[in-house]
């Protein structure tokens, strides 16, 4: 034991790194073992995301297939499980085109940034007790900061492609990302207020009652917002296959396209992990000291299924409607949630500022009532708001409600 991580090192709180560092330190010089420890962490991280993306791609395609009453990929391996690998191999051997007139640097950099953000996000998610790769004390802030990077990457991809569809996609994507950042941040504030910490590990421990119950409104807004940030139906305007063909990544091919897809699907996995951690109490569960990772996986699966299910069912909204949805529906809801949570915490907390489980249950009841009132209320308010002004509904309530015998009369 000749190498010991200093107490003030930012990664001291990460047991995995410390363990690898000390183990490697037995044989190697300290600087090298520090490097190796970092490398091992990154290796795990990158592969977790990419493997997660691969598994998610397969799951989504199979599930969407079944939701659509067909089979989905079933050729490669048992149940078509090797399909993502086959796709990857295909993408690797395909020619890597850079269109003439493209801004080469931005064009190449965009997919890399996209993958990076997806991977980085997972770094702060605790897999089990004390097993976060990097237990940052500003974990929530870090998540927000990293997700915002995606908008830069989308803009780079769309702009550098020198394609008008890509430009449409990029403009839409950035608009959506920036708009949805606001309600998402406000939701997270509610979570942080209750948990009393920005560290995701602390957020998990604070969930004696899962936050999905304590703050259903926040959960709803967060899932909707994340779904928009991930470009998933019904907010997938940036790609909008039927309109923009592929949106901002229309010109990408080969492994660059593969990276974008990996980032996209890896993003869903990491976002599901973040949602599971923030609202579904992460690794907590029965016997969580031993199978905490399993609980997390199950919860990720549930959230991912929700994403897939919604994607398979809904049509897409128009860009102005998506904006209206963010600013006129999700924003007020997240404000209401923030206000409610703040007031509740203010009145319920004890002298040290901590909340007991009973307090959480009281909050649950109040917030469920708030949820039940707010959603229908704002739902009926949004009804006409999402429609542009010149498109007020016509006098008739249901269009074409008359089925008339046609003798050929002009109505």
């Amino acid at each position: 034991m000749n190498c010991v991580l200093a107490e003030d090192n930012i990664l001291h709180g990460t047991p995995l790194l410390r363990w690898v560092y000390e183990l490697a330190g037995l044989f190697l010089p300290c600087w090298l073992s520090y490097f190796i420890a970092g490398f091992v962490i990154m290796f795990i991280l990158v592969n977790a995301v990419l493997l997660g993306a691969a598994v998610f791609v397969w799951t989504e395609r199979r599930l969407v297939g079944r939701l659509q009453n067909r089979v989905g990929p079933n050729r490669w391996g048992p149940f078509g499980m090797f399909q993502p690998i086959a796709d990857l191999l295909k993408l690797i051997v395909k020619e890597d085109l850079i269109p003439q007139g493209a801004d080469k640097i931005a064009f190449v950099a965009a997919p890399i940034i996209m993958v990076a953000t997806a991977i980085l996000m997972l770094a702060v998610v605790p897999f089990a007790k004390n097993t976060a790769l990097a237990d940052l004390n500003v974990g929530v802030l870090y998540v927000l900061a990293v997700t915002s990077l995606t908008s830069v990457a989308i803009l780079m991809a769309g702009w550098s492609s020198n394609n008008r569809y890509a430009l449409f996609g990029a403009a839409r994507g950035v608009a959506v990302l920036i708009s949805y950042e606001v309600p998402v941040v406000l939701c997270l504030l509610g979570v942080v207020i209750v948990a009393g910490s920005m560290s995701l590990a602390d957020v998990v421990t604070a969930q004696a009652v899962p936050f999905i119950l304590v703050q259903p409104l926040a959960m709803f807004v967060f899932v909707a917002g994340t779904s928009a940030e991930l470009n998933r139906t019904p907010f997938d305007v940036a790609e909008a296959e039927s309109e923009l063909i592929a949106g901002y990544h229309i010109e990408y091919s080969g492994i660059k396209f593969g990276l974008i897809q990996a980032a996209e699907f890896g993003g869903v996995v990491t976002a599901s992990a973040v949602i599971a951690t923030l609202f579904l109490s992460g690794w907590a569960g029965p016997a969580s000291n031993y199978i905490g990772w399993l609980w997390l996986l199950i919860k990720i699966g549930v959230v991912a299924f929700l994403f897939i299910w919604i994607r398979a069912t809904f049509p897409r909204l128009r860009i102005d409607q998506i904006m209206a949805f963010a600013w006129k529906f999700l924003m007020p809801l997240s404000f209401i949630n923030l206000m409610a949570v703040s007031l509740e915490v203010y009145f319920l907390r004890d002298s040290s500022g901590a909340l007991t489980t009973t307090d959480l249950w009281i909050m649950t009841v109040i917030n469920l009532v708030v949820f039940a009132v707010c959603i229908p209320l704002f739902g009926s308010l949004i009804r006409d708001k999402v429609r542009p002004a010149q498109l007020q509904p016509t006098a008739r309530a249901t269009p074409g409600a008359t089925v008339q015998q046609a003798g050929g009369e002009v109505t």
Partner: protein
Amino acid sequence: MPIRTEPMTVNVGPQHPSTHGVFRLRITFDGEEILEVEPVFGYLHRGTEKLAEERNYVQVVTLTDRLDYVSSMINNQAYCLAVEQLLEVEPPDRGKYLRTIAAELQRIAAHLMGIGFFLQDLGTLGTPLMYCFRTREKILDLFEMLCGARITVSYLRPGGVFADAPEDFWPALDRFLTDLPGELSELEQLILENEIVMVRTRGVSTLPLDMAINSSVSGPVLRASGLAWDWRKAEPYDAYDRVEFDVPVAQNGDNYDRFWVRMQELHQSARIVRQCVEQIEPGPVRLDLPLVLRPEPGREAYGRVEASKGELAFYLFSDGGISPYRCKIRSPSLINLTVTEHLLVGWKLADMIVTLGSVDINMGEVDR
């Protein structure tokens, strides 16, 4: 400081997933808003009318399959009606009923395609489309029983249909008709009142009735604008005068109404098929016409049907030879596109795709 903007011209199509074939629109956008539209046709022009002048009257039936290739039976029907007008003959009753059954099944199939792709254009991940295809597949199986082919059927002949339905067709048709309401109601539950669909389509790209009529728009698009006009009612052909059905009409003429009218027509078509199955009686299915037909010279005919897309008509002129002297095809898809500019200008890119889907064109018929 005002931001300087400039319009941007984009070619939508001919290679675009949502132009329903090789249709091309040259669109000038201001941001996402459409300023100018110029439709460009002809990428699928095969000269069907010229080809028809080189083939004898029966052979032309195979060409009509390929016009609107999702509603071949109805194309066959329009053409055969025109030839029968030329020859002044009428098919036997059983033939008429079989034609009506085939045409109405085809209408269900074509409308399902139209609805499915319309919803696909709205951005669903193919789920309603797959459900539509599930039902359509059964119709194609029925067609295979009738005539041995699924898409390019060539089932109808001048003077009837080429063969009676096989024995196993009737139970299969019965099963299909029993299953159909359930499948349609599932589709309706899935999407008909979906709020996102409502928000996306209601009030979008409205077509006023006077403009629709003046622009020769026909079919579901015309009925969505508020005119209860259906050639099956106005000028009944085949067995349509012996069955009862309603003509669904909507008032607003927007994208939702066009979609809604098609949904309702599915039920009406099923109703027609049911009545035909009840009424059909044994008998010959085809007139004893020679293989090579020679109508009297100088005769002309305008055979018209209510096809899935609108009024489909064949204007035939005979010079007494074995092939039509002139075979003009009045294709509803092309003529419904007369209003493209009116429907699209001022709306957004996303609406444009949906509007095209709601007008439900088929390039095989537009370009011919």
